[in-house]
């Protein structure tokens, strides 16, 4: 049944053609340009894998409402497509809201669990706060030209003063930032993404967040004419904070899906930083550099869609096999789930940003863009950029930490629970979905020149600048020129595997290949057991300790004399307590005051109406 979506997304994939055609339909405008088609490829590529996986996964789910779930799933996919294709504000908002609502229902699939209901509500709330901001932003952009001016074409025509353009940009950044999980509005993401069934989490993290990136790009570079330099600085700073924050929190999570959700926040931060850098370069007229950072941003969107979807559906398989989301109760799954563990290893290496996989390519491009910044005329921004590059480097290095923890605790070591002995590997459909996404990660990592050449169409559309001939030849990626920097993943992979083979052959030939198995070394203490391995919390402990001021930590340590020692540790987000709880208290107080007006008596309401009328008559 779900193969239909697979076919649909296959259809979506080959739309590499650049079609700047309008397809005017009377009330609703649709348009497919290169920016839309790039994100459609992202959507198609990721959702093909996820849907393949889903057709196996949902079949085994015990949910009673499978039909309803499928309807919502398709609706979610269609609305995301329409968001990308919309060419007027009505169409966009309708699709955007459909996307939010269908994903809300998908998140609350297990609605009998109170935590999931809570997560869903938080998601819905922030999605709507964001949607209001986007709507207001469109209102500003149409520039008071009346009802008919809500098409994107009219917005492209409208000439806004810098003040109103800034207002529109800030509203859009706020609105889309809420959807993407940018810093102060990220709280829903680690609640809602893990709550959904795994294929849905994969789509939400991998694809839905990218629609917000699409929105920011569309508004900033396509709909608005002028950009100001401080927009770029703001977006860059916001992105960096989000990135470091996200990865720091990912490091201390014990639930595997929450960990991935926080890692999505990190990646969104990197994307925002890339957009900010693009704006800065674009404002100062550095066409090639703007194209470079835009390429890095788009490339990273594509990469993140692939590897994050892969990891999320992988957690689905684990959930399936073990029924356990807490990493502290898993372990040793590499023996029970060989397929899943190999495919997940690809995803883990890709997201950690090591060559020759795809995560490295986009990070490499982004860092190259940062390194080229000294050409800027403003010396203060020049000073800022190295610090920004340092933050990116820190986030990237921490991501490796997080991923070692993720993979190591789940797949490696000894089984922490006896029941894991009966865990089974993913089914055929699930494997096929994961294999597709893993293959995409490898291909995107090995053929960067091909991808960069196609991304150039988007750069041309948005900032009318291109990298042009991005490569010395098809093997070497050299975004500016070969003297400056070049990278060839294929060459690299061949060399590493060649050297490895040579080493294996030499060692076997010159010496021997004898191997014996024995018990692990117990250091003279024979009572070793599986509980002595690091749990997820244990592995995150150094991060908790180094970045202590950022966390709100509750922990409970037993004394050495306890007969039944109990450990308890929990790290929370300080922002929740500093920002959200005051807001919610304020809202409650305001609504308390508003309720003073309500007494449910008809004559009181009539009096209100009467007073309002009088006041209006006095003013008019």
């Amino acid at each position, binding site marked *: 049944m779900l193969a239909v979506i697979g076919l649909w997304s296959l259809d979506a994939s080959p739309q590499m053609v650049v079609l700047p055609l309008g397809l005017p339909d009377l009330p609703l405008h649709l348009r497919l340009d290169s920016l839309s088609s790039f994100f459609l490829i992202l959507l198609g590529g990721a959702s093909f894998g996820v849907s393949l996986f889903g057709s196996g996964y949902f079949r085994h789910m015990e949910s009673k409402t499978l039909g309803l779930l499928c309807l919502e799933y398709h609706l979610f996919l269609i609305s995301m497509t329409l968001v990308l294709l919309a060419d007027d504000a009505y169409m966009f908002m309708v699709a955007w809201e459909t996307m939010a609502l269908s994903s809300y229902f998908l998140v609350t699939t297990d609605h009998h669990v109170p935590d999931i209901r809570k997560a869903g509500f938080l998601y819905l709330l922030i999605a709507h706060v964001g949607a209001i901001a986007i709507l207001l932003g469109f209102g500003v952009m149409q520039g008071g030209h009346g009802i008919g001016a809500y098409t994107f074409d009219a917005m492209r025509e409208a000439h806004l003063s810098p003040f109103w353009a800034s207002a529109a940009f800030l509203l859009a950044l706020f609105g889309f930032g809420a959807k993407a999980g940018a810093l102060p509005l990220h709280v829903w993401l680690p609640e809602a993404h893990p709550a959904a069934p795994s294929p849905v989490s994969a789509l939400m993290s991998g694809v839905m967040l990218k629609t917000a990136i699409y929105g920011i790009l569309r508004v900033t570079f396509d709909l608005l004419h002028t950009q100001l330099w401080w927009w770029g600085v703001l977006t860059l700073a916001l992105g960096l904070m989000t990135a470091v924050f996200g990865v720091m929190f990912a490091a201390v999570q014990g639930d595997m899906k929450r960990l991935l959700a926080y890692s999505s926040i990190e990646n969104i931060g990197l994307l925002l930083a890339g957009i900010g850098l693009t704006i800065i370069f674009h404002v100062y007229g550095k066409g090639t550099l703007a194209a470079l950072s835009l390429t890095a941003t788009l490339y990273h969107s594509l990469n993140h869609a692939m590897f994050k979807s892969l990891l999320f559906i992988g957690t689905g398989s684990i959930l399936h096999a073990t029924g356990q989301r807490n990493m502290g109760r898993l372990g040793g799954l590499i023996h029970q789930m060989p397929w899943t563990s190999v495919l997940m290893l690809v995803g883990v290496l890709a997201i950690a940003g090591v060559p020759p996989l795809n995560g490295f390519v986009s990070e490499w491009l982004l860092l190259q863009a940062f390194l080229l910044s000294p050409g800027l005329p403003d*010396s203060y921004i020049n000073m800022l950029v190295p610090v920004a590059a340092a933050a990116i480097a820190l986030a990237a290095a921490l991501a490796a930490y997080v991923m070692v923890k993720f993979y*190591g605790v789940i797949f490696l070591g000894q089984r922490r629970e006896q029941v894991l002995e009966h865990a089974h590997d993913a089914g055929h459909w699930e494997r096929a979905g994961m294999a597709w996404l893993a293959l995409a990660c490898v291909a995107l990592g090995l053929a960067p020149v091909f991808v960069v050449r196609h991304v150039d169409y988007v750069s041309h559309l948005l900032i009318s600048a291109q990298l042009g001939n991005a490569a010395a030849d098809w093997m070497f990626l050299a975004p500016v020129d070969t*003297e*400056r920097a070049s990278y060839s993943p294929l060459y*690299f992979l061949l060399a*590493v595997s060649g050297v490895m083979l040579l080493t294996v052959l030499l060692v076997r030939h010159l010496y021997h290949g004898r191997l014996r198995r024995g018990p*692990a*070394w117990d250091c003279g203490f024979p009572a070793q057991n599986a509980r002595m391995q690091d749990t997820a919390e244990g592995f995150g402990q150094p991060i908790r*300790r180094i970045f202590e001021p950022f966390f709100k930590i509750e922990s409970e340590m037993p004394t050495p004399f306890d007969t039944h020692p109990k450990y308890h540790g929990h790290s929370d987000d300080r922002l929740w307590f500093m920002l959200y709880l005051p807001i919610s208290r304020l809202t409650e107080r305001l609504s308390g005051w508003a309720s003073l007006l309500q007494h449910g008596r008809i004559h009181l309401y009539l009096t209100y109406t009467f007073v309002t009328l009088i006041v209006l008559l006095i003013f008019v």
Partner: protein
Amino acid sequence: MMNNSEPILAGVFQLTQLLLVVLAAPLLTGWVNQCQAWLQNRSGAGMLQPYRVLHKLFHKDAVIAHNASWLFRITPYIVFGCMWLATAIIPIIAVDLPFSRAADVIALVGVFALARMFIALAAMDIGTAFGTLGARREMLVSFLAEPALLMVLFTASMISHSTQLPRIVEALAHHQFALYPSLAFAALAFVIVLLAENARIPVDNPSTHLELTMIHEAMILEYSARHLALIEWASSLKLFAYISIGIALFLPHGIAEVGNWAGLPFAIVLLLLKLLAAGVGLAVLEVVTAKMRIFRAPEFLGTAFLLAVLGLLIHFLLGT
């Protein structure tokens, strides 16, 4: 620029460097150990001891734990391959080697990261307390050291307007002993990173198996025989690679160009002298400092990170 014979010649240079480095790397480790022994008034095991150890290890039967997976068995080969290739990227005996085009300094950091991830994962594979402890500490040290290393490399690449190591070396070597203040800061940061990444003394102790202080040794506790030999050899290669990066960034003078046969003997003698001096320096540093607590390491590496960022800022303030 390139005539017909040059690609072949460059290939010959590249292969020569690959073979020389892989064979000579344990010698450098032996030299550092010997210097330390002399400084501590011991007679030492001699500079050739690492070769004897490797030979012995290769001869033994490998013993691995019952629950070791395929990841545990391929990791030594991956780590060894990565480190070997890392030395191929760095211009050691001559600049402009063909393989350096495939990866620039950022990719070089990526290669180190790849090897490190695998070795940390392999350490967690058996599921002993020591393995995970070592993996956790290694990742802790590396996430602090890696940004600092990147900042050092960025400072150098800002000066030379390139992230390709041959270009950096050319740009820096042709400025005859011009002193860049930014590079001075970067050099300090680099020394700290070198100590941390190679598990040397203030951060880790390569010759201890005391559980409270182990980092690198805790990770490889389960390895034996040929696997251990490859990992030890890879560690030697890593030390060699780091010292070569240091030489390439801060003392590149006198390196030969590809095809410059006349300059080659001089370049090799000079390189040997630099390596010997670096080995002595490392030994002295290790003898005069004491191992620090693991939670002092973040401060130590944070200093490196700040120094490196400071170097970069100074580059912007003073210009070139």
